[in-house]
């Protein structure tokens, strides 16, 4: 096995807390990602998903509520938008841009690409990029593959080709990775150090896993636990001077008591001086200038050995 492929995607150790710096002496980076997908599972957006009151709520009332709270607290967000949603709701997407938010890609239909051929995946990626470019007037710089509620895992799905295709397509960052809680480089080739910057995602700070999840059963509404996770991680990352990133779905968090919890959370964070709240694109730009892969990616040579009777 060359390097540590199929095991690790980045270098052996993260940056220590005291090595992490944010612009203008700010202490902690706070990222808000809003997922505008209504896809339930690996198929991506289906007609049935759009013909659902939750989707209707998320596209209108829920989104209005969420935007009002973001505006009230002066918070900038990155909207992860499947191309089909961008085409469907082009005016709304342009209004988000006008409000200072970022529009990033979240797949063509937010479908699972892990089983596609590279050619098929590239065609979908190019089409998604084209649609978003047409709607917003410029090429998106970020790509997300966020998880859906009916996925078997809560990390998002990619294929073995995805990261290379994103690099080829000129994307500046991948929006959701789980190997760190600060931006880090996802290496696709050890020899050439080919990599793409990846921003941190963790499902404990994503509303969809706490608000009526799984969808059917009893005792599934655990908004209080979501809130405590947000608060605990924010407090801890602030103390360390690192990064806090949350993921929101207007169809979930936009509802009544949940919206109140989000307000309570931002009321809590507002008391902390030195917060930097960039879009994901601005965060990625800062990171690549300050911690370029050429000097900050420390790939140890592999000491991995192949043995009979062991996995490669």
């Amino acid at each position: 096995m060359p390097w540590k492929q199929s095991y690790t995607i980045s270098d052996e150790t993260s940056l220590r807390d005291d090595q992490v710096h944010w612009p203008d002496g700010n202490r902690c980076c706070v990222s808000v990602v809003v997922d505008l997908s209504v896809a339930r599972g690996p198929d991506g957006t289906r007609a049935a998903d759009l013909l659902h009151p939750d989707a209707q709520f998320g596209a209108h009332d829920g989104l209005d509520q969420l935007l009002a709270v973001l505006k009230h607290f002066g918070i900038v967000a990155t909207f992860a938008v499947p191309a089909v949603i961008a085409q469907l709701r082009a005016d709304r997407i342009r209004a988000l841009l006008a409000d200072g938010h970022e529009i990033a890609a979240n797949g063509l239909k937010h479908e699972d690409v892990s089983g596609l051929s590279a050619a098929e995946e590239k065609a979908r990626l190019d089409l998604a990029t084209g649609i978003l470019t047409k709607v917003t007037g410029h090429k998106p710089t970020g790509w997300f593959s966020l998880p859906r509620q009916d996925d078997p895992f809560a990390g998002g799905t990619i294929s073995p080709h995805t990261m290379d295709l994103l690099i080829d397509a000129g994307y500046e960052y991948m929006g959701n990775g789980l190997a760190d809680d600060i931006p880090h480089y996802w290496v696709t080739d050890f020899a050439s150090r080919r990599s793409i910057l990846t921003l941190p995602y963790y499902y404990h700070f994503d509303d969809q896993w706490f608000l009526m999840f799984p969808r059917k059963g009893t005792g599934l509404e655990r908004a209080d636990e979501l809130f405590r996770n947000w608060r605990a991680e924010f407090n801890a990352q602030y103390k360390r001077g690192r990064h806090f990133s949350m993921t929101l779905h207007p169809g979930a968090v936009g509802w009544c008591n949940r919206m109140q919890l989000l307000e309570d959370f931002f009321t809590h964070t507002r008391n902390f001086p030195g917060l930097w709240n960039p879009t994901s694109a601005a965060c990625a730009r800062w990171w690549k200038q300050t911690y370029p892969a050429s000097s900050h990616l420390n790939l140890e040579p592999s000491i991995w050995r192949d043995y009979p009777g062991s996995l490669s």
Partner: protein
Amino acid sequence: MTDQLEREIADLCATARRYDARHQRIPDLPWPAGTRIAVNFTADFDAMLLRRLLNEPPMQLAKGEFGGRVGIWRLIDLFDAHGIKATIFTPGRICELYPQALRAAVRSGHEIADHMWEHHVPKDPALERDHLLKTAAALEKIAGRRPVGSRSEHTLGLLKQEGFLYISHESADHRPYYLRDADGDNAMLNLPFHYAIDDAMFYSFAWLGSGNAAQRITDPDRVFDLWWAAFWQQYRVGGYLNIVVHPFVSGRALRIDMLDRLITRMKTLPGVWFPTCEQVARHCLETYPPKHHAV
């Protein structure tokens, strides 16, 4: 008809008695003078190895990778700050992926113990032995000494033969106990851990292959309350607690903070002992060696 049923009842009882006989409890184990409870912090450092073994997708591997890049370092810092010596159950393969973190753990005086070669025990006895020896050699190279403990389902006879002193695997008793193999031989000390005192059961989505309908991932405040209650009950009876953490799970900042609060609160009480598993094992073996009997 009745004869048949009576035979079934007798067979069930015989089966259970054989299983009973494999377990030897330590009812009134005295801890060292001044100690009221022994608390083992044990870290299962498999990072992404189990995810890889189960052929899980890339983002699942990245979730595990957090444990090696970030989590293990934070746990070492946390234990060091509290003067706690922990036991890190480490698959042999991790020595090839994260040698720096393991060397740092050794420098801080933590115990490095076996957690299988690549997180499974092969069925073939020759390959099983090969895996155990490879792991022992890899850990010895990092730690400077052979491991004496194992968290695995390795054959007890093999572990004995290779000089292992204890396992830490199941929870047939809340205190350390001796477990014999099916033939009634090879009594091995077990330092029990319970899944309810295991971070992954609360925080790791799809743990142990569970489906979406089984997920209720929760927050650290709730786990703090549960674990404190477990500790407090054992403290009052003078018992034992084995707290299982995974670097990819508990290494997250919010949970390191929770563990910090939990340890700080435990330390407000007198007589709380935070040894390595090896220390507990040697104490048990000296104070209460296994009875020499076969079933």
